[in-house]
């Protein structure tokens, strides 16, 4: 138990790890016939590697890393669209720092900035709003990216811009939703998934009921989890207990932050500003029905797609040479099995998006032990 001592409550962690081991034995999980648990959220992926939870728990438990890292699933063509917008004269293009190094087919935003485009890393869409107020002669575009955790922030920013009549602000909307890709993965006959650890902060916004279909229609357990090590261990135990008892329910381990019905103000803002696209492309997963959002007609004045005449079009997934992002994304391959891992592809010079963000599975492997594997 290498890392347990650094947990806030090592005693509780040890007790949970022991309990997980007992239940795994009761189920009959072994290294050869493991229980597959998908952690959906990239924040959980990061925490699992940081604390070595995959090594600490019973060997019959296999974590499958889910699609919950927004920059990792962004199609290259959308990065290209960002670069196209950013290179227009008179544009200040604003983005979260995470998205700067995501490779496009032509270049990343970082390269576009080096080539002279006015691209600024911001912490919040509020910073982009402020830039628009201070630069009335410029068009300030915010790169709206992320799951339901960040979707309310751009919705509320657009509503604010509308109230102020701030017409030189727009959002390039690439927001995506969590439940739809989970459904797509469950429908994939190649995927073996026995249960889920659900995202805590997405659920803080949407509540727990959007996951009901997982339990009802697919008979799989899901436990919404916080991201401290103890939260994750407890959630894994709750998933295993459901499997042992033949149950499939939506449980909320993170009730101290996640209300059953989510955050009503955020949900209202999302519903007011956005509507679902018929389908949206995910890197490695292909197009998924109703999995992306676009700006409603009444807010088109703040829609960068409309302002710059950029539509959404699915593009064939042109992945870089020899890269296995798609297989890693769907859990069919471990990052270390990708021939580019640690060779052509490192966090400083990512080939694939899974290496860009600390929430990406490849970056997590690399940072917490993968570098060692590659050197061997």
């Amino acid at each position, binding site marked *: 138990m290498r890392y347990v001592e650094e947990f806030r409550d090592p005693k509780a962690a040890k007790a949970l790890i022991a309990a997980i081991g007992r239940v795994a034995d009761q189920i009959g999980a072994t290294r050869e016939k493991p229980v597959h648990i998908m952690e959906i959220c990239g*924040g959980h992926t990061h925490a699992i590697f940081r604390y070595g939870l995959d090594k600490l728990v019973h060997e019959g438990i296999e974590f499958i890393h889910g699609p919950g890292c927004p920059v990792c699933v962004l199609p290259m063509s959308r990065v290209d669209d960002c670069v196209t917008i950013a290179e227009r004269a008179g544009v200040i293009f604003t983005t979260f*720092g995470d998205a700067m190094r995501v490779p496009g087919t032509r270049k990343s935003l970082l390269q576009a900035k080096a080539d002279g485009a006015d691209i600024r890393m911001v*912490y*919040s869409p509020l*910073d982009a709003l402020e*830039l628009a107020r201070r630069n009335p002669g410029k068009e300030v575009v915010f790169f709206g990216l992320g799951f339901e955790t960040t979707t309310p922030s751009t919705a509320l920013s657009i509503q604010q811009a509308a109230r102020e009549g701030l017409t030189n602000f727009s959002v390039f909307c690439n927001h995506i939703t969590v439940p739809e890709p989970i459904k797509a993965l469950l429908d994939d006959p190649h995927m073996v998934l026995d249960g889920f650890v659900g995202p805590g902060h997405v659920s803080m916004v949407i509540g727990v009921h959007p996951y009901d279909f997982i339990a009802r229609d697919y008979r799989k357990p899901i436990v919404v989890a916080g991201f401290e090590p103890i939260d994750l261990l407890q959630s894994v135990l709750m998933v295993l207990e459901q499997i042992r008892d033949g149950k499939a329910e939506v449980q909320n381990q993170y009730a101290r932050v996640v209300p059953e019905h989510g955050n009503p103000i955020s949900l209202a803002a999302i519903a007011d500003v956005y509507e679902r696209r018929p389908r949206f492309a995910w890197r490695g997963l292909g197009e998924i029905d109703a999995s992306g959002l676009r700006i409603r007609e009444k807010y088109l004045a703040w829609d960068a797609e409309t302002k710059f005449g950029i539509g959404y079009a699915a593009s064939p997934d042109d992945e870089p040479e020899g890269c296995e992002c798609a297989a890693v994304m769907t859990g069919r391959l471990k990052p270390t099995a990708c021939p580019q891992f640690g060779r052509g592809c490192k966090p400083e010079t990512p080939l694939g998006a899974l290496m860009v963000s600390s929430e990406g599975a490849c970056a997590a492997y690399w940072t917490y032990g993968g570098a060692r594997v590659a050197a061997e």
Partner: protein
Amino acid sequence: MCLGIPGQIVAITDEARQMAMADVSGVRREVSLAPVALGPLADLVGAWVLIHVGFAMAVIDAEEAAATLEALRGLGEAQETLEQMAEGAKALEDQ
């Protein structure tokens, strides 16, 4: 991006826009209280909130805030978020 960071509300800065000053690990940052504005904004002064990309998304208690901050420090996310805040402030000044 998805983890958020706890901060304590110190003052309301713009009632109409629902903006407030928050203390985030010793750094001051203006945040929107819109998602948690269920009652008078003044009631939120002194409260701990979970802040995602500049928006207070949930009111949490002081103990939860402390535990969350510790977990974020362990993951290196607290430092990263503070750097992103500094980056955001700089972006406003760049020409």
